């Protein structure tokens, strides 16, 4: 059993702050979107909570991008195309079939690459694709008076509102899958504990770690 220090303190603090903000944003966002339902937050509260959490999420995301650019953590987000398709197939086959046969995990975590191919693609898509779109559309919503009247032939406010809503649903979907996938480590809580302690415990299995370019 190898113990790897994969999650430095700044990353864990950012991760859990992000988690709290995500929950606050989902709860307040749903409360605004479906306002009028009894069990949701009051509209006026939801509006302030959502905007405040959105501002903090923006600051957190900028911090994350800057930290990734300035520390070793950024290397986990460098996509290596060679062998990627094969790794994706192996990973998908494992989740769809191998995991029920208790086969060994096809990917072993290393200090140079902590994500399997599926994880890497989804985190890249979320952190560098969906998150900036979510954040930009959120700010565009607030300052829509400075936007042109139309975007792509539609009213710009509608484009902004729908973009924000679609990306929110996609990120809620990501959160749902993320919460489940973290239970597929060595034990159900192994990955959760790793994000608390910073240390990942890895069986010295036969599979090959993914190399980082």
């Amino acid at each position, binding site marked *: 059993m190898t113990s790897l220090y994969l999650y430095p303190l700044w990353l864990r603090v950012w991760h859990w702050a992000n988690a709290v903000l995500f929950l606050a944003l989902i709860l307040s966002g749903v409360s*605004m*979107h479906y*306002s*009028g339902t009894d069990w949701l937050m009051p*509209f006026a509260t939801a*509006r*302030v909570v959502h*905007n*405040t959490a959105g*501002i903090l999420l923006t600051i957190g995301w900028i911090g994350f991008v800057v930290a990734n650019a300035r520390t070793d953590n950024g290397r986990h987000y460098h996509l290596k195309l060679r062998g990627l398709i094969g790794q994706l197939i192996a990973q998908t086959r494992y*989740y769809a079939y191998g*995991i*029920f*046969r*208790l086969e060994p995990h096809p990917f072993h975590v290393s200090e140079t690459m902590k994500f399997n191919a599926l994880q890497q693609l989804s985190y890249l898509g979320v952190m560098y694709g969906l998150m900036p779109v979510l954040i930009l559309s959120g*700010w565009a*919503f*607030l*300052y*829509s*008076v400075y936007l042109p*009247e139309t975007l792509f032939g*539609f*009213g710009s*406010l*509608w484009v902004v*509102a*729908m973009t*924000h*809503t*679609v990306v929110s*649903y996609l990120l*809620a*979907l990501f959160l*749902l*899958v993320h919460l*489940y996938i973290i*239970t*597929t480590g060595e034990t159900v809580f192994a990955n959760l504990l790793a994000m608390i302690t910073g240390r990942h415990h890895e069986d010295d299995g036969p599979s090959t770690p993914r190399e980082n370019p």
Partner: protein
Amino acid sequence: MPRRRRLHLTLLCLLALGTGSVPRFGAAAPEQRGDEVDAVLAAAAADRHACLRCHAMTTLAYRNPEDGAIVDLSIDRRGLSHSVHGNLACIDCHRRSYRRYPHPERPAPEEFDCIGCHRDDGDDLARDWGHIDAEFQRSVHAVSDDPGAAGFSCHSCHDPHRFRTAEVGEPVTQIVRDHNAVCLSCHEGLIAPHRGSHGWLPNRDAHWEAVRCVDCHTPGALHASHEILAAEESARNCVGCHSTDRTLLARLYQFQSEEDIARRGLIAKAVFNEAYVIGMSRDPVLDRLSLIILGLVFLLLTAHGIGRYLAHRAHGRA
């Protein structure tokens, strides 16, 4: 512009800005300027008080000997005090000949229009007054041959003794009622049940309670347009509002957003955003589809988890 009025406006601007920056406004000390403003306001208040001694009487009126019509001369004291002109002296707008009583029998005819005083207020508006004038000149009120539209002016809709702008935080239904009351002051007959007006409009009464007349009877792209459209040119397309490009919601949101930024500033706007209109991010198809996908994924993950549990249990037994 009369000199005295110009002085009033200048002093009121100073009061409104209230920065206390001595170099910016000359050598006068802030207290001195405050005293001057107070003196002007007090003089205006005294002037209004003198006029309202008679004109606040609700029954003050006379019969026009030429056409026999009753001419109402009463001013609602409360309405005036809450109006945008509530701090002005009456003689700022009305000729000085009205200063004395009895008033002259044949005073010179007066020509009031908003542009005459407000031409230079452009910075306070999204569009300047020249645009508003141009919009009005295109409006049905200006181009109609109908005798009822003869002599139509700003004051036909905007009673200068009552006019005030809607404020952020006022209930939207109240704003709608106040706006529509202006139109209905002339067009009330149109909405009488027996006229069958707007009969094509589904949920007609609900629309009348929640939508301003001008929302359909002005061109869609601008808010607060003064180009009132003729009935046949007005919006009749339901999809213009109830669709992907929901003009009305966008207009309401943009209007309140501008007010929000002007009132609270850019930073506070980011936190409070009072303009948000419930429903503007909703799309029934998108919502249903997204919730179905989320539900299916949840079921799939639950089934996956149960499968893993059963596999582990079977392995443990073996």
